[in-house]
């Protein structure tokens, strides 16, 4: 933990008109960590993700990835620098096949130009072949290779979630952001997802930041947790510290309950 953090978020805030959606948000993520970001509905968690990935430009503060400032970069540039994400409501390329969904994520890793594709030069064939092989290999890891030519929209829900994670990983991130990966899953699927997250973290030597409402999942796999409420960071620490933190209990359960429900 002595090395400089992979991601450093320093006093970041954003205003929409007069509304302060997020303010004074600080976060440090080190290489290899698995961090949870929780908070009640409307706390600003997804806004934070959008700030990190360049969808919104912060009105104050700095976001540094390996010491390089990300503020103001377009989302595709942020992805190319090593942050990729999944979405709260699945955003696959529905009419594209499973294979092509992953190939899109490999886009920036292949280098053949538009002209070489139009004239079908050798670089086009070698580039496309490499993309195809890598994508198939990738889908094998996620056990999606039996549905290579299936349209993404025809997959069952759990597999769509898995494909979305596979696609985000194919973009070659250093930091993976998962926005409610377990939303809409049954306990069995959630269990599988937890195993998958642990597996990819190991396999790709990945750093992960996830938003989640399923406390079993968050408490089960995250090493550190940040808690947001009303756009403010109200607590951070290990799962145990968070579980007993009075401000967190207050945010989730309301003030009056705190007195009778402070438990170990």
């Amino acid at each position: 933990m002595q090395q400089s953090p992979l991601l450093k978020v320093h006093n970041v805030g954003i205003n929409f008109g007069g509304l302060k959606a997020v303010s004074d948000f600080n976060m440090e993520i080190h290489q290899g960590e698995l961090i949870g970001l929780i908070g009640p509905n409307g706390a600003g968690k997804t806004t934070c993700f959008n700030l990190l990935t360049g969808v919104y430009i912060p009105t104050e503060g700095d976001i540094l990835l390996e010491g390089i400032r990300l503020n103001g970069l377009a989302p595709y540039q942020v992805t190319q620098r090593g942050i990729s994400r999944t979405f709260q409501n699945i955003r696959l390329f529905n009419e594209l096949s499973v294979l092509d969904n992953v190939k899109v994520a490999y886009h920036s890793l292949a280098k053949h130009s538009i002209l070489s594709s139009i004239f079908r030069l050798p670089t086009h064939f070698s580039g496309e072949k490499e993309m195809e092989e890598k994508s198939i290999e990738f889908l094998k890891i996620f056990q999606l290779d039996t549905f290579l030519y299936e349209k993404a929209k025809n997959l069952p829900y759990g597999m769509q979630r898995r494909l979305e994670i596979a696609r985000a990983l194919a973009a070659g991130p250093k930091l993976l952001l998962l926005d409610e990966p377990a939303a809409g899953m049954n306990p069995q699927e959630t269990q599988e997802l937890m195993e998958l997250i642990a597996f990819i973290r190991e396999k790709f030597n990945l750093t992960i930041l996830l938003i989640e409402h399923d406390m079993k999942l968050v408490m089960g796999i995250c090493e550190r947790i940040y808690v947001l409420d009303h756009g403010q960071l109200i607590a951070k620490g290990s799962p145990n510290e968070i579980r007993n933190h009075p401000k967190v209990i207050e945010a989730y359960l309301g003030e009056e309950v705190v007195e009778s429900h402070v438990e170990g």
Partner: protein
Amino acid sequence: MKKVRGFWFFLILSVFVYGIVQFLISAGMLDIYYSNTLIFIGINIILAVSLHLVIGITGQFSIGHAGFLAVGAYISAIITMKLQLPLSLALVAGGIVAALAGLIVGIPTLRLKGDYLAIATLGFAEIIRIIFLNIDYVGGAAGMQVTHLTTWTYTFVCLFITITVITNFTNSRHGRACVSIRENEIAADAMGINTTYYKVIAFTLGSFFAGIAGGLYAHNFYIIQPSNFGFLKSFDILIFVVLGGLGSLSGSVISAIFLTIVSTFLQNYPETRMIIYSLVLVIVMLYRPQGLMGTREITDFFGKWKGSKGGNSDAAKSFTESS
């Protein structure tokens, strides 16, 4: 290497079609009326396919395609009529200037989405038309005299190049990037695709081929006037693409052929022409709201060319049956 075999099949088929028609024309078995109709079909296919790249592949709803057609028509007419240069050069120049116009129009307008983009492109097309209307050098409202130079050979070569280039573009990482923008722009952005760049590229490439079609169009008639390139012309092209099925190149080709033939035959019944034409459109849209081909390609039916728009339909069928 399936794709390469598919290309050779396409090449041989094209040479075959070209050869038959050229033979019939030179043997005098096709009179000028039919050969003109064939040329007109060819031009319409080029227009439909070039707009297909913008609307069907990239999902940018542009309804100003006639503007780029006009640029190509006027530039190529200036080059042949005023500068006395050959038609082949005029076609290329028309295409390039139309592509530049597409670039200039595309960079500001492609930031817009949906309805706003449609209105903006429509507005730009009208601006282009009105510029030509006010330039005396090209005849203003009276139009410009153009010699009939377009032949079946010119048309077919241009058509072949257009389809090959657009198919090759679509079935590559670049085409896939464009389709991903159509499917979900936010996700495409998050996957590292420079969406603005690809939208502008698709728009420029589409404009280039519209410009070439413009050159053929101008030299297929004896006169070009700004009124030929009004927004109704844009809608004609749009109808080819929508009727063929958004996202299907072969659909655009088939519907361009079908609608050109329908409207040519209906010229014998001028009173009822537009009524029947509209009825055909209404009927097709009622019974095939996804367009003639949906998003599929004609090659999907032969199991060749797994296009970049989503796998083969057989696998989809077997999957839905098993689940």
